[in-house]
């Protein structure tokens, strides 16, 4: 049996994944480009939203939102994408950085452990002791690198950083310069044209740090909503699961069954919105059931089917992985899921849908197993 080629990276950044599209856009781009930008605003828009032809649609959602994001990044304020987890905020920021700067890897990952050094700079202490403070001893942060090179820097989960770390950004975003006192007269780093910040923050995260009023004023907020259109969400989940499956070298025989994915997306949307397709009001679990979560569940279910099942994705595999996603660490989520099975999934199974039948039976079995444990 031939061994599939091992990819060089688990996941490539957007500018490498879509390098051909970016090259095509750059070649065809006749519109003026803002200083420091790799593409014109129109080409950035086309890269993200697609053109129905050679450029694929990468973000599914309101075009107006993408346009506002692009326009914000042309100005002096940073862009803060907020929204529920899994609404593709990080993906959108990655696409923006890839299209505008040709580099989406300048990223600060916000966490409770993020320090001022992660935002400003650190030192190579061996060189610092050996040579004294100088450019060689300086370890620039992604922010500093972005300023020096006129690119976008991404700041993920900014509200997870302590307030004092967040506030480092205030002077940096207003003055557009960073002072490195240790470097003396050479210590003023001016941001080159093209520099800006794209930050993301989750609305549902607990233990986050509210942004200060001063920092809020330096960001334009854009709320990224869950995907409103069912068909668009289904297409997105199907596309992403296929892409992951291809990366996992899943045999071509295990072709995706759209009907099984439809069960997955339907169930997730109904539980998320608290409303069935027939208009019945449903109790909502606290778990985040985003499109991204749908991709993760769909991917896991597909691998389950390929390695431990009959090789084809069905409602039963979907249910086995969805139950975990819904329950998470909150036992109270079992209630809404049980009611959903009773009021929505079983009637659909009784109507003769094979996938809903598999879904209802496997979900019930998984819940029973869990109760026994």
């Amino acid at each position: 049996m031939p061994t599939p080629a091992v990819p060089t990276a688990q996941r490539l950044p957007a500018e490498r994944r879509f390098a051909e599209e970016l090259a095509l856009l750059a070649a065809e781009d006749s519109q003026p480009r803002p200083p420091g930008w790799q593409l014109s605003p129109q080409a950035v828009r086309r890269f993200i939203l697609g053109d129905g032809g050679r450029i694929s649609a990468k973000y599914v959602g309101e075009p107006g939102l993408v346009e506002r994001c692009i326009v914000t990044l042309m100005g002096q304020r940073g862009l803060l994408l907020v929204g529920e987890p899994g609404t593709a905020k990080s993906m959108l920021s990655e696409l923006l950085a890839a299209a505008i700067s040709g580099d989406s890897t300048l990223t600060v990952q916000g966490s409770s452990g993020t320090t001022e050094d992660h935002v400003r700079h650190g030192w190579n202490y061996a060189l610092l002791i050996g040579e004294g403070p100088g450019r060689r001893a300086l370890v620039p942060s992604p922010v500093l690198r972005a300023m020096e090179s006129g690119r976008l820097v991404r700041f993920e989960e900014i509200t997870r950083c302590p307030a004092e770390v967040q506030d480092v950004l205030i002077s940096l975003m207003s003055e557009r310069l960073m002072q490195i006192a240790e470097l003396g007269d050479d210590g003023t780093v001016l941001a080159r044209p093209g520099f800006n910040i794209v930050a993301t923050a989750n609305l549902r995260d607990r233990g986050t740090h509210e942004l200060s009023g001063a920092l809020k004023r330096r960001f334009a907020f854009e709320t990224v909503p869950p995907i409103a259109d069912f068909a668009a969400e289904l297409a997105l989940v199907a596309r992403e699961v296929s892409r992951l499956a291809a990366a996992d070298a899943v045999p071509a025989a295990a072709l995706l069954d759209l009907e099984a994915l439809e069960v997955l997306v339907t169930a997730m949307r109904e539980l998320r919105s608290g409303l069935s397709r027939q208009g019945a009001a449903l109790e909502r679990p606290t778990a985040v059931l985003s499109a991204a979560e749908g991709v993760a569940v769909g991917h896991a279910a597909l691998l389950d089917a390929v390695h431990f099942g009959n090789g084809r994705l069905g409602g039963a595999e979907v249910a086995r992985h969805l139950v975990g996603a819904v329950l998470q660490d909150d036992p109270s989520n079992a209630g809404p899921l049980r009611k959903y099975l009773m009021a929505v999934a079983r009637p659909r199974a009784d109507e003769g849908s094979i996938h809903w039948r598999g879904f209802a039976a496997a979900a019930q079995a998984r819940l029973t197993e869990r109760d026994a444990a």
Partner: protein
Amino acid sequence: MTPRLILVPVRHHSPACARLVRALLRLHRPAAVAVELPADLQPVAPLLGDARLQPPAALFALGDAASGGRSAFYPLAAFSPEWVALQEAAAAGVTATFIDLAQTRRAAMAEQPAVDPVPGLLPVWDERPLATASGMAAFTAATGRSDFNAAWDAAVEAQPFAAADPQPLLDRLHRLAELLRDAPPMGGEVLTVAREDAMAEALRLLLARHGDGPVLAVVGALHAPAILARLATAGWQPSEPPPAAGSVTGYLVPWDHARLEAASGYRAGLVQTGWYLRSWQASDSERDADSLHGEARRFLLQVSRAARAAKLSQPPALPEVVEAALAARRLAALRGGIAPTRSDTVEAAALSFVRGARDPDGTAILALIDTLLQGEGRGAVPEGLGRPPLVDDMRRRAAALGLDLTYPDAQRLRLDALKTAQEQPLARFLAQLDLLDIGFAHRMAGPDLLTATDLTRRSEDWIWRWTPEVEARLIERAMLGADVPSAAAGQVLVSMAAVEPWAALDRLSALLVRAVLADLSALVEPLTAALAQAVATETRLQPLAAVLVRLEALLATAEALGLGADAAACVGALLAPVFTAACLALPDAVPHDDLQPSPGDSLRLLRRLASAPAELAAWGVAPLPRTLLVQAAELALARQPPAPLWLQGACRALHFAITGGDAVALGAALAGPLAGTLPPDEGCAALEGALAVDRTLVWQFPQIAAAVSRGVASLQEDAFLAALPHLRLAFSALTPAEIARLVETLDPQPHGVTAPLPDAAPLEAPLQALLRRDGLHAPEAPT
């Protein structure tokens, strides 16, 4: 070369279309001007061209009964192309021709669905297909805009316009209209075809009459391609128009910008009318890219100023306004536009002014932007200009009485119940308008003669509001009379004629009260005569008692109301026949809970009227026959099959109250059913009926109280618990003071433990010792 026909496809409230029409009229100086308004409203055309008319105003078409009584509004703003056409044509000495199918012919169109949820209150123009037709949906998608209105703004409103060269915009409108060819016909296929036939035929006649023309026609974009196709077809003949029925009269009504909003339900309405009003006010003829950008800048500055005026904690500062203006410009450029549209500007404002996703100030700014974009202001129709005399009379009277009808909002008014000389005419005026049912004023509180409630209140509160709908309803009443009192009197006569026999007493007595309140004393005699006739055929106690309630209230307040002696005599004379009819209806009275007055109230009223000869004499009414009431009660008690227990109890109490009698026997009669085996509700019914008529019985007569007490005490625990809710209901008629007196009647012992109980004696000494040890003992009584 100027074509013979210049057909302008428009949206009914589009500033860009209005500029285009103005430019075309000034450029081509047409021999005739045609607009899409019903042909039978043509007499109003000169009025709509009157320069004194202040937009927005609506053309209100009022059909007579023969035309099906249909009414319709056609609102026109300063930035409506039809308005511009009418005004420009009048200024040029040309009377515009109304070319749409006559209103009177539309009533015959059976296919036309009744689309109005509130017929006649919503304007008739309908532009929904602009947003929904597949061609337009494709156009919206192609512009990359989120909805049709945004796409229209980008393609039409936010485009530069040179008055000297209007052709590019005209061509663009024709191309957009072409996209509507597959639009579903509004109001039905047959009506749409008939309207388009009528418009095409009218234009053909105009073209024939004016030789080389040119003729300029302003029609909705929905109809333009169909009209042009008909005119271009050689030998085209219109289908036979539907028959006309009745006649229609056009009036002018002031309108307001808020009613041009789509959110008000208007199907050709705009989103954020204020933006278009600003656009028109900024320039009604020319626009270049700079002025378009200026519009966005001015609006953003205005938001900033309004935020300061509203004292928001962090109003947008100048740098933020600049940033927002830049963002608006960039959004427009990114979306392929020349200048920011309404939605670009609003989005840019939200982007730059809102700090934080859930920031309270941000929410306040968004609300402020929304408020600024709501259309404000209303038009005015000068006196005598297309207004029926009734409207002018109403306005004159309102002004004389101090009601300022220019207020757009609801106003409050408080009148003294014993009205002063100044307030009496105002109260009568409001009552007359109330009779006209035009929705002008509503009484919120105060003495109510219809239900005889709150008669002791010292003041009455009204809320009034003058709206275009009120004026339109007033116009609908114009045929009733030339002034408010005569129209109100006419309305009473119309209502009298339409009274349904089954509700005659209620309707006629209500009309009587309202006519008296409205000072229409000439109507009192015919109304009381009609009432007397209706009373003679009524055999139910409740409707008769309801009339008595109103008559009593009228007589009691006759002096304050200024009711003349003759009118008061008419009302007084009606009391005796109604009382007699009520007594005759008493034996067959049916206990009920849901109608007012209740049976208990009715019987108490009869007893009161029969026992108050002095009061009646003060009203000039002869004493009512008490014996008749006693006989009615006796009849009710003697009837077979027996009357319901409630009525039996009530009649026994009534008899006892008027004639006196054996309290022990009454007590036994009331307590008897309690102790028997009847279901608990029936068991308590006699007591409940008696207390409903006279609640003093149980505490004024110890024998009755004792009998009832014994009856209750004889109940087993289960039966007592079952009867308890009904007993509570029966005794709910008593006031707390009366209940206290009842308790004293039943148990003259003072309440509370004042002496140690014998069984507690062994405990008393140790208890006292403990209290003393803990310092809690009562001070020793002085000996």
